[in-house]
C-alpha cells in the first residue's frame, strides 16, 4: 500500500468499515432509550464482507440483501440519514417509517429492499439479473445471503436457474456460522456451500477469516468474469457476528457458543487491522468526518416527524 491509488483505496475501505461499525455502535448506545422501535440485526464483526464486495461494484450495479442489512446498505452507498430516520420510524426514513431496520432500501444506489424471510431475496436477485441480461445491460447483480439461506430449497432453485441462463450475478454467502443460535454443523452434514454451488457448475471460492482484501480481490475477479458474460460466480465469506442475533446486546450469557471462539474473531477485527495500516493523522481525519456525519444523521432522525394517520393507507397499491 505505497502508491497514491492504493492509499486512496485503503482510506476508502477503512472509511466504509469504520462508518458501519460506528453507526451500529451508536445504535447500541441509543437503543435503551427506545427511540428505535425496530428489531435490529447488527453487522458488527461482519462489515468486511459488504465492504470488500461493494468496493468493486459500480453505482448502477444492483445488490439484494437480508434483514442483517445495515452493512450492505451503507457499503453500497445507501443514504445514512434516511436509514437512521427509518430505524426511528420517521417520515423521512428510507421507507417513510413503514419498514424499519429489516427492510432498508435505496434504489438510487442499487440497494434493493431487504427481507426478513431467509433466502427470499435470492430468486429476486436472479430475476433482476435475468432482466439485465435480456436488456443487454452492462450492470450486474450481487445477492448477499447468510449460510442459513443454504438450508432453504429456494436457494438451490435459484442457483440452478442462474447457471442455466448464465445470468450476470454474484452470489455472496456470508457464513457467520450461526442461524440464530444454531451452528451450521448442526444443520448441514457437511458445511460446504461452495461444493453445493459447484454442483450447478458455478465457480465458487471460499475466503477465510473475513479478510477484507481477499474478499475484495476475489470479488473483483468474479465481477470481471461476470461482466464479460461468464455467468454466475459464488463466493463464501467466512465471518462472525459479535453481538446477539437480534438486538444490541452481547450474548455470551446464553452459552450457545464459546467465549474462546468469539474472542478469536474479535482479535481478528478488520476495522482495527485496516485502521492500523493508515497513518494516525489520516485515520483520525476519517474518523472525525464519519463521527460528525453520524451525529448529524441521528440528529436528523430525532428531528424528523412521525408519519401522520393518513399515511397508514398509502402505497398499499402502486398507482
Amino acid at each position, binding site marked *: 500500500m505505497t502508491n497514491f491509488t492504493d492509499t486512496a483505496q485503503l482510506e476508502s475501505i477503512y472509511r466504509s468499515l469504520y462508518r458501519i461499525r460506528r453507526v451500529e455502535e451508536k445504535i447500541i448506545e441509543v437503543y435503551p432509550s427506545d427511540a428505535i422501535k425496530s428489531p435490529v440485526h447488527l453487522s458488527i464483526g461482519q462489515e468486511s464482507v459488504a465492504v470488500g464486495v461493494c468496493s468493486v461494484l459500480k453505482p448502477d450495479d444492483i445488490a439484494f440483501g437480508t434483514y442483517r442489512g445495515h452493512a450492505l446498505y451503507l457499503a453500497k452507498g445507501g443514504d445514512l440519514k434516511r436509514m437512521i430516520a427509518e430505524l426511528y420510524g420517521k417520515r423521512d426514513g428510507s*421507507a417513510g417509517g413503514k*419498514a424499519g431496520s429489516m427492510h432498508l*432500501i435505496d434504489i438510487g444506489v442499487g440497494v434493493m429492499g431487504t427481507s426478513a*424471510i431467509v433466502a427470499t431475496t435470492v*430468486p429476486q436477485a436472479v430475476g433482476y439479473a435475468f*432482466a439485465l441480461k*435480456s436488456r443487454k445491460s452492462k450492470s450486474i447483480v450481487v445477492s448477499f445471503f447468510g449460510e442459513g439461506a443454504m438450508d432453504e430449497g429456494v436457494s438451490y432453485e435459484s442457483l440452478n436457474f442462474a447457471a442455466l441462463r448464465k445470468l450476470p450475478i454474484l452470489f455472496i454467502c456470508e457464513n457467520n456460522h450461526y442461524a440464530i443460535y444454531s451452528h451450521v454443523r448442526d444443520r448441514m452434514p457437511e458445511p460446504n456451500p461452495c461444493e453445493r454451488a459447484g454442483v450447478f457448475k458455478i465457480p465458487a471460492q471460499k475466503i477465510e477469516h473475513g479478510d477484507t482484501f481477499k474478499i475484495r480481490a476475489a470479488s473483483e475477479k468474479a465481477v470481471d468474469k461476470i461482466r464479460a458474460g461468464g455467468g454466475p460466480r459464488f463466493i463464501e465469506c467466512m465471518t462472525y457476528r459479535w453481538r446477539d442475533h437480534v438486538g444490541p446486546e452481547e450474548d455470551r450469557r446464553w452459552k450457545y457458543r464459546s467465549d474462546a471462539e468469539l474472542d478469536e474473531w474479535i482479535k481478528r477485527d478488520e476495522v482495527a487491522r485496516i485502521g492500523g495500516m493508515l497513518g494516525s493523522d489520516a485515520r483520525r481525519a476519517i474518523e472525525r468526518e464519519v463521527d460528525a456525519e453520524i451525529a448529524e444523521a441521528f440528529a436528523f432522525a430525532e428531528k424528523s416527524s412521525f408519519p401522520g394517520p393518513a399515511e397508514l393507507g398509502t402505497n*398499499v397499491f402502486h398507482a
Partner: protein
Amino acid sequence: MSSMRNSNRSLTYAQALYEATRQEMERDSGVFVFGLGVDDPKGMYGTTLDLHKLFGADRNFDTPLSEDAMTGVAIGAALAGMRPIHVHQRMDFLLLCLNQLINIAAKSSYMFNGAVSVPIVVRGIIGRSWGQGAQHSQALHSYFMHVPGIKVVAPATPHDAKGCLIAAIRDNNPVVFMEHRMLYGNAGIVPEEPFATPLGHARTLTAGDDVTIVAISHMVVEALRAKHLLEEVGIAAEVIDPVTLAPLDMDTIAASVERTGRILAVDNSWTMCGTSAEILAQLTERLQGKRQFRAARMGYAPVPCPTTKPLENLFYPNAKTIAQRAYSLVKGNGASWDPAVSEATEISEFKGPF
C-alpha cells in the same frame, strides 16, 4: 391483423387470452411469459402457443420445476422494470409460490413506501372434468383476497378474459389471474383491438327483482343457466359476476341486494372463510338496520375433490342445485322444486385427458 375490424367477431376464452397476451407483447417489449410448458407444442391450451416464435425465446419460455424461485424471478424482473406473466397450468401449484407472492410481491409497494412496484401477472388455471381430483381442481382466490397489496381477477367470459388480462398486465401491482378449464372452450364476442377492462367493477349480467345471485368464475355460467330455469317458475334472478375479487365491487352487489332482499353467493371454491363469506359479511355490515335480507351460500362440498364422476358431480354446485337453492330462498326454506336439467355441455362433452 386485418384492417377491417369485425365488431361481431367471436373468440373462445382461450383464444381471447392468447390474443391479449400477443397484443401486449407487441405493445411492450418488457412483457414476457414463462412457466412450465408455455412453449411446448400444446402452448398452454393455445393461450401461449408459439409466442416464442413471434417474440423470441427470452419472451416465452419453459422453466425448471421451481415454482418458488420462479415467482421470485418474476418479482426480480418486475423490480427491474419488466412485466412478467407467470403461468401455472393448475392453480394448485400457486401454493408453492405463496412465500414470494404474499411476503414479497404483495408487500413491496407498501413496505418500501412506493419506491418500487411489482407488476407481475400470475395465471392459475382451475382444473375440472373429469377426474382432476384433490390437487388439480382447487381455486385459491380467497387465500390472496385476504392479503392487502395483491389483486385477484377471475373473468368468466371471453370478453373479460381479454380485457382483464390486458388490464392485469398493465397494472403496476401483482395480479393473480384465475382462469377455469371449463371456460376455455366457451365462445363470445371479443373486440379485435386491444382494450383494458378496468379492474374492480362487477358486471350485472341479468336484471331481476327476486333474488341476487353472485357467482364466481365457472359458476357464472351455471348461475346464468339457473336463472333460465328459475324463469320457468316465475322467479327473476339478478346474476352478478364480480369479475375482480380484490378489490371487490361491493357497491354493485349491495345495491342489488338492497332491492331484491335475497342473496345467494355461489363460489367456485369452498365456503369456509371464502369469498362467499366475505360477501355476506360485508352485506350484513352495510345493510343491517336498513334492509332485511335472506342469505345463502354455495360452493365446493367441504371435502377434498374426489375423482370418481358420481362423487365429483356432488362436489360442485350446478345449474340445478343453484336454481333449487335460489327457489327455496325466495319461496321459504321448506319449499322444494325439481327442475329438469341436463349436465352442462362443457362438462358432459369434455374428453380429457387434462
